[in-house]
């Protein structure tokens, strides 16, 4: 009998240990997007900087794009802005900005003051497109493949580490393998 009790005790201990070691550490950052590996949701939204012009989500096809959801009301968006400018400077992938539930005037002012990292900025006033993309905490960034598949997602500000370890490897698999071998 004591052996049975011991076995049960060890089993329970095992379950608890596995459970605790798998528990999310940073809460909401661990929520996996159901969008990963799936086609980017379609959308047609007005362009911020060209009055009257519309942007069709199909324009994302044919080349890699980083889709960045932001707003001037979002504190962390300001924090990541320099990183976005740096990504633009690297020239590896164009950034398409979705200005989420924002005033056009403040968004335009933001871009002229802080610099514009975006190839195109579209405005999502009613937030429907953001819902289709499963956005809940700006900033969020999605890497969309030339085939239109969402391959990577960052919830919260883009950082150099996340960019280098999670996003860049998708853009140049060969170069990433080389960099790993060299390091």
């Amino acid at each position, binding site marked *: *009998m004591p052996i*049975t009790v011991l076995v*049960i005790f060890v089993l329970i201990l095992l379950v608890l240990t596995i459970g605790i070691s798998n528990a999310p550490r940073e*809460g*909401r950052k661990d*929520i*996996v*997007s*159901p*969008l990963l590996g799936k086609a980017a949701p379609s959308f047609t939204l007005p362009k911020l900087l060209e009055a009257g012009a519309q942007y069709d989500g199909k324009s994302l096809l044919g080349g890699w794009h980083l889709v960045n959801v932001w707003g001037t009301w979002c504190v962390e968006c300001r924090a990541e802005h320099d990183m976005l400018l740096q990504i633009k400077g690297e020239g590896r992938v164009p950034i398409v900005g979705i200005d989420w*539930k924002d005033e056009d005037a403040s968004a335009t002012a933001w871009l002229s003051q802080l610099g514009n990292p975006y190839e195109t900025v579209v405005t999502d006033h*009613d*937030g*429907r497109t*953001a*819902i*289709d*993309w*499963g956005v*809940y*905490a700006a900033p969020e960034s999605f890497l969309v493949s030339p085939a239109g598949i969402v391959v990577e997602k960052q919830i919260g500000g883009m950082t150099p580490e996340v960019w280098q370890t999670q996003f860049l490897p998708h853009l140049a698999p060969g170069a990433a393998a080389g960099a790993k071998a060299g390091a």
Partner: protein
Amino acid sequence: MKLPALLAAAALAWSTLAFAVDNTPPLADPAMQQRYEALIHEFRCMQCQNEALADSNVSLAADLRLEVHDLILKGKSDDEIRDFLVARYSEFILFRPRMSLRNAWLWAAPSVLLLAGLVVALSVMRKRSLLPIADDDASDNIADA
């Protein structure tokens, strides 16, 4: 006759205070409105994770309430609306997780543990019943002697 009607009117007026958070226009069909109320209590507000969509005044929660409202108007079923939100925000948006292979063991655990307890209890009881009733025999002997 007049007092109950007056009380009912007062209660109705008072109840609107409870929905102050929700600015979504009410649905004309009472059955649809009832489904709407039930659904927005089922979903988590992703920004303020321990509140339901119904209770949150964050702008995303308002947008999602409007989405639920519009989906009901479009004739979507409750399950289709759940699928719509899960497809975008993952199972995490459901307060009542669905059963899946990944969490099936969690659902089964209580019955499995109960069964294991029963087996242990039964085997203990059986072993005890097989023990000789030594004390009683001894006292009987003393009483006999």
